[in-house]
């Protein structure tokens, strides 16, 4: 990992922790961006952590860009030594794979896709060496995921799977982005899964849909009344496959204000995870099942 510092115009400093994605890069980015936040530097207005990078927005009338750059660089040492441990939560997200709505949408935009004759899931299964779509879906939901970034649009989480590099699923984005994606589509691009928080344009492959809102500007959804955005970087997600009947039932519960997502408080330690991935994941899912 080699940290690279650069300016985004006269109001942003962009820090790339690593060119490639890894949990190590994510943890360093998160500790460094937290260190910048804790330093309470005058003139800093926004701090945005991303997958393997972060960005600081500032007011150059208050602090000179070069002075801020030096302050941030000094925090790198501290971040390297920080414990790679998070007190976070694991959240279960029900997913209706191969649902009719993303299917209709992917057929509508077929000419923008690498494989005009199949579906997004058939294509993803094939290029990742799976014999069937079902096997691919199992690989997608059997191990938990880490929210490594929240953004793009309103509260959209980017998720990175907690498995060895050689087990990571990788899928290219659409050749040309779609102009439409159903709200709450579970998507995939590069090595990241995502949930489209709102309806709109998108370039990720579409695998399914969740009945569980993750963004509610009106704050009517029971579990979004405190804040309109569900996810924070560092959250852990476990997908749970559901069928149409359960999808409809959960939609109704959300509508009635009786749905509460299944979640549990957990601690995640990157060093322990790297020592034994299977055991760490088993412990995470145990915490969720006990919730």
């Amino acid at each position: 990992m080699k940290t690279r510092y650069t300016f985004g115009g006269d109001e942003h400093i962009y820090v790339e922790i690593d060119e490639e994605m890894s949990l190590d890069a994510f943890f360093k980015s998160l500790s460094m961006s937290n260190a910048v936040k804790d330093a309470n530097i005058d003139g800093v207005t926004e701090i945005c952590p991303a997958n393997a990078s972060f960005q600081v927005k500032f007011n150059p009338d208050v602090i000179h860009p070069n002075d801020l750059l030096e302050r941030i660089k000094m925090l790198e040492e501290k971040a390297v030594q920080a414990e790679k441990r998070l007190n976070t939560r694991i959240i279960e997200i029900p997913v209706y794979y191969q649902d009719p709505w993303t299917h209709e949408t992917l057929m509508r935009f077929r000419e923008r896709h690498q494989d005009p004759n199949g579906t997004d899931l058939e294509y993803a299964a094939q290029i990742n060496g799976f014999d069937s779509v079902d096997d691919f879906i199992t690989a997608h939901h059997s191990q938990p995921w880490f929210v490594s970034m929240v953004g793009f649009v309103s509260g959209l989480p980017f998720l990175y799977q907690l498995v060895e590099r050689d087990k990571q699923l990788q899928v290219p984005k659409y050749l040309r982005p779609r102009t439409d994606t159903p709200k709450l589509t579970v998507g995939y691009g590069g090595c990241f899964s995502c949930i489209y928080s709102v309806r709109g344009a998108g370039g990720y492959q579409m695998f399914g849909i969740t009945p569980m809102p993750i963004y509610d500007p009106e704050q009517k959804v029971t579990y979004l009344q405190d804040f309109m955005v569900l996810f924070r970087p560092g959250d852990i997600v476990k997908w749970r496959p559901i069928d149409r009947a359960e999808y409809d039932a959960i939609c109704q519960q959300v509508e009635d204000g009786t749905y509460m997502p299944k979640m549990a408080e957990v601690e995640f330690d990157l060093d322990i995870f790297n020592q034994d991935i299977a055991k760490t994941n088993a412990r995470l899912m145990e915490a969720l099942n006990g919730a």
Partner: protein
Amino acid sequence: MALNIINPGLSTSIQDLGRPGYFHLGIPIGGAMDRFSMRVANMLVGNSEDAAGLEAVFMGPEIEFTSDTAIAVTGADIPVMIDGVEAPSWTALAVSKGQKLSFGFLKTGARIYIAVAGGITTPEALGSRSTYPIGALGGIEGRNIAAGDALPTGSAGAVTIGASVPSTMHRMPATPAILRMVKGLYWHRLTEASGQQFLADEWKVAPEADRMGYRFRGGKTLEFVDREQPFGAGSDPSNIVDGCYSYGSIQVPGGTEPIVLHRDAVSGGGYFTLGAIISADMDYIGQLQPHTPVKFEAVSMDEALSARQERHKLLDAIRSELS
């Protein structure tokens, strides 16, 4: 007092100076694209500069006033009419109950700012009234204004009717428009020749130009330094591991058509960016019509900071002029 919307125009939204603090969740700052014009419109009618007003694109709305008040129109050059009689822009105008504001055809520029004494007082969302339709935040139920809306306004302060800002103190883009940028972010992904070419080419504003971003066409396709793509980035040479985007950053998906992200920017994504437009020139982008020729000019950080100070000084001069 309210503004009755008879005809909303093409795409007219309530904007103020935005909602900083939520970009890390994908909620952009928003607010007026041409903040200079929005601030001046508010100054003219005695509002605080961050009061909410209207931002109209290419076409003006038609509005009826429910009581006597004062208004000011700034930004793009467009005939302003009160009950069909032309009135000056960049000027504090008195309007009476029942009078109607309408507009002629746009001459130059793209965005029209309308301030009303007391400001528009629709409910705030995350500290701002700015409309962000993608996230259904601010404005009226998160949307642009529509015919039949009645926009509430606050209590007016002191207004000097007839106060005006001379055209020498307006701030509009030149032709071709020069957008100054600081090279950086992922500029190193370009070959040296391709970087030079990008700055030498004349680009044109594409029809896909809105509050999220402005797209440009007409320059040569960019060439990238060869590399093995990093894990997680995606296979196209213009792809990166999804990172944060700066306001004003210039991304070039596939190396073909640059997109400059503006006030309603997406907060991140997987395309390389080659630098960002300087803060002083962001207002200009909001005044560019489709097909306008544009050149990108690389400047140093010192030049970017001086340009920012010049813009501040001009605003200060207008504040003194009007006080």
